[in-house]
């Protein structure tokens, strides 16, 4: 009888001990989960905020890029116009020079005997 009691105690005690450890652990895990959740929420919020900031930056970059594109285009157009103007001026100068040359040639011819 004494032997049986001993054996029973040997089986029951560890079981009690195991179940006590599992409950504490669970609470700890649950607390940790909460904290991680909160962290995750924060991280998500942060990520969303970062994304929003990134998106906003992208929009700004896109806008800037578009502005730069149009500025380049405008500059190119201006350059083209300036080149055309210069070309026209060169052309005019050429015509003026031609006229002067023609007049000079006529003059030189008129100076013969």
């Amino acid at each position, binding site marked *: 009888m004494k032997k049986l009691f001993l054996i029973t105690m040997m089986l029951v005690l560890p079981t009690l001990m195991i179940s006590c450890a599992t409950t504490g652990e669970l609470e700890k895990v649950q607390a940790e989960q909460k904290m991680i959740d909160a962290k995750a929420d924060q991280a998500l919020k942060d990520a969303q905020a970062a994304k929003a900031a990134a998106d906003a930056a992208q929009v700004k970059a896109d806008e800037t890029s578009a502005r730069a594109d149009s500025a380049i285009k405008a500059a190119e157009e201006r350059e083209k116009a300036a080149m055309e103007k210069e070309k026209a001026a060169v052309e005019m100068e050429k015509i*003026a020079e031609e*006229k*002067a040359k023609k*007049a*000079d040639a*006529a*003059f*030189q*011819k*008129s*100076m*013969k*005997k």
Partner: protein
Amino acid sequence: MKSVQETAGSFPSQSHHAKEIERNKFPVARGEDVIGRLAVIRLEKGDTLPDIARHFSLGINAISAANPGVDVWVPEAGERILLPLSFILPDSPRKGIVVNLATMRLFQYKEDGTSLLVTTYPVGVGTSERPTPTGRMHVARKAARPTWRVPASIAEDHRKKGDILPKAVPPGPDNPLGEYALYLSKSGYLIHGTNKPASIGLTATNGCLRLYPENVKTLFDDTPVKTPVRIVNQPYLIGQRNGVLYLEAHAPAEESDALELEKLYKKLRTIEKKAQRTLDWKKVREAQAEARGIPVPIFELSQGSEKEAAKPIEVEHPETLYGKPEIPALNLRAWYVLAADLPDKIDAQRIAAIINHQGPQIPARVFKKSGSYRVIAGPFNDGSEAKKAAKRLKIDLEIDGIVIEPVKNG
């Protein structure tokens, strides 16, 4: 090689001012080849380069080459013009008359006791079709108020243009020989005056040498018969003054360019070898390519103290330019010729200036007329004078003028 102060072509500071400058007569120092001095002048409204050229005894060729890019007929008032009044004497014996065709300049040498004097004048020379001959000759005879016996070739040229010339043209404004002629021993060639002063410095003659009327008179008086005449063609001249070697490059006739350049480089290599120093060949090539017809310092011959080339002098604009064509006042009783109606003011001014510089002169001016500019030649005393001018405009300048009758008759 030591650098030589380059001043040719650069304009002087305010300190070098003069009212007058010598343009014809210069002493020639022993062993020296460069005479005269460069000068600058500020143009005034209405000046043309031919007017400035004549006043300073320069040819149109010389003033144009020295001032590239300047409008010959309508230069800007206030523009500063270089007067190329410094010359390298031709490589020829310094005796009698020497003419350099490439520079279009005549040099007359005279001994003055122990020193040598040179008088120089610009000339007009023959065209490429009828060139002035080179070589040695002499003055065979002289004539004041010569008659021009029209050569058959010239009569034929004029006939083709519808202009019938007489066999002989007596002295007077229509005589192209002007008032004085020196007949050369080479038959058919003369040194003479002109009734077209604006042709001095042009290749416009039939082989003769033309001088400004005021220059030919002096030459005529100073030149005895039998004076030796040497005609050379030297587009590249080198010479020294005050220990500095100068190069004067002129635009050569195309056919003689390679040969003349070869001669120049040979001479320069000899100088370089003798001096045992390297010449600034870049400067030589620049002067040759620019061909401005002014002496450019290229080498210091004797090593020693730093030598400086003479700076151009600033000359005051004279009150009136000698020989500048005058335009008579408008007269409602006179006849006129409408020579051109142009949209551009400069074009109109150029045509008017060219007409004004015809020989004999045809006065012309520009009228502004609602969006266009009219070139009006005149005044003429009568209809026949106006018609004669219109005919000359047609023959000489291919201008179809319209004769305008007087506003008021009688």
